[in-house]
């Protein structure tokens, strides 16, 4: 992990309030599922960096896909949007990373399950798995067709099935309704409700968690959760450092959520 000050080379709204951001550069030792801490403002308010997953890294650069949720991401998006598209190289963004541990890749097939803004980090994973010749199914869930992102990109690497809550695209309903019996191993990222729902299936695999973070590097203990080990012992783990990826089914929910 390292501190980088990188030129912004692309910033596009790919769905309402969702932006795709490319930074020129590369990150040493990146594993799909890792994230970076993004400085959203040069000034001391907002104070903390924002954890954003790495969507993918390619020749063009480092890609982040983020949603403008609160004050910090909105300030960032406004700042970048007010720049001239043709002149992006002048704008720099400070990031620290790559952080945490990514998804361990095992076997020769996999089911990727993403919900909403949890979809982007799975793209880099799909690409890496595809490069290793694995057979990949991607189950992607969104609220509506309008919110659906990255579908065409996933199609390059995986068989893609979509679910939307309102049925405006693909299956009408929850993405979990697309899960088949031989889905194992699964790699999931999305809202907590989705991750918890996965535990009710007979599946093994990994899921990526979100917690409010301060440091992002394992020193403040702001993001701690309890994980159950295989022998049912409780273990304190930092989402930023020991995670954000954990083996499916071993997180003790409900004690450190928002």
């Amino acid at each position, binding site marked *: 992990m390292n501190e980088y000050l990188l030129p912004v080379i692309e910033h596009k709204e790919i769905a309402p309030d969702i932006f795709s951001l490319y930074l020129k550069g590369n990150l040493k030792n990146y594993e799909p599922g890792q994230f970076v801490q993004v400085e959203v403002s040069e000034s001391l308010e907002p104070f903390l960096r924002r954890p954003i997953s790495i969507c993918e890294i390619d020749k063009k650069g480092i890609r982040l896909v983020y949603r403008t949720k609160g004050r*910090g991401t909105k300030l960032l998006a406004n700042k970048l949007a007010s720049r001239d598209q043709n002149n992006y190289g002048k704008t720099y963004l400070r990031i620290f990373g790559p952080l945490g541990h990514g998804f361990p890749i095992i076997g020769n097939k996999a089911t990727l399950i993403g919900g909403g803004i949890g979809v982007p980090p799975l793209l880099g994973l799909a690409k890496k798995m595809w490069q290793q010749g694995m057979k990949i199914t991607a189950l992607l869930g969104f609220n509506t067709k309008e919110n659906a992102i990255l579908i065409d990109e996933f199609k390059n690497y995986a068989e893609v099935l979509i679910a939307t809550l309102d049925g405006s695209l693909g299956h009408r309903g929850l993405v979990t309704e697309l899960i088949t019996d031989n889905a194992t191993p699964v790699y999931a990222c999305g809202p907590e409700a989705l991750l918890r729902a996965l535990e009710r299936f007979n599946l093994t695999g990994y899921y990526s968690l979100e917690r409010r973070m*301060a440091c992002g590097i394992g020193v*403040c*203990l702001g993001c701690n959760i309890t994980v159950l080990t295989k022998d049912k012992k409780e273990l304190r783990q930092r989402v930023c450092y020991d995670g954000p990826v954990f083996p499916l089914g071993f997180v003790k929910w409900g004690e450190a*959520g928002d």
Partner: protein
Amino acid sequence: MTDRYFLLVLLSGVKQVIDLGGAKLRNRFMSASGCFGYGKEFAKVMDLNTLGAIVVKGLSLKPWPGNKGVRVAETPAGMLNAIGLENPGVDYFIDHYLPFLKAKDIPIVVNIVGHSLDEYIQVARRLEKTGVEALELNISCPNVKEGGIAFGTSPTKAFSVVKAVREQSTLPLWVKLSPNVTDIVEIACAVKDAGADALTLINTLTGMVIDITTGKPLLGNVTGGLSGPAIRPIAIRMVYQVATKVDLPIIGVGGISSLSDALEFFMAGASAVQVGAALFRDPLLLERLPKELEDYLKQRQLSIEEVIGLARRSV
């Protein structure tokens, strides 16, 4: 002369030694407790040997699970934390982290917490002859035996805990004061009388954030400790007040995010400083600061002694 001194230090390769209440530091910049873990993670980020000393996360006698629910919240130019002193206990530290840190060859200061007077004493005893450089007593935590009121908010309670540890420990004893008091000088005097070797000023201010989307306190613990640049003016004021009235070395902490901020603390009367929350925004900050101070002093032909307390002498 200053220049020549630096030159000599540079040429000789000898590490500077700074005495802080009997503890020997490499330079005047340290991590603030709780913002640097036990050093292992930061060893991957920066060269630990650039630190004046490492101050580790507060340790209690037994492992402590900390608070449930959300533990950190951003605030304007700062943050709240309600970690609740989660830590693996002093014995685990001695077995698992201390060997790693000792191999690094930097002074180690151990921040200790207790939920009773007796716990403080026992933690301090465990650290005797382990090779740590100093103890930093965090007296901001609640005294569970006496109804949860912090030791650090009453001069008599502060006196008793410092005196008890002082009698049981041969290590240099720094005491870290809580800013949530009417009169910080009164507490500082009590702590000095009890035998403290240095004072660390300040710990966090008690604050709270409400999540208006749920209507609930955001932090699981309801309240948390406010840190970061937002509190710096309060920290500077307290360092200045205590430096004016109490004859003990002061370690300044609270909202430092740049060399200018650190200089304010030195000028207010601090002999050394710690950096906490700003590391979360700028993880390499502590690696840069010692060099930046050296450059600043060289450029102005100043010694650090001339800078320390300058604001008090110039009023």
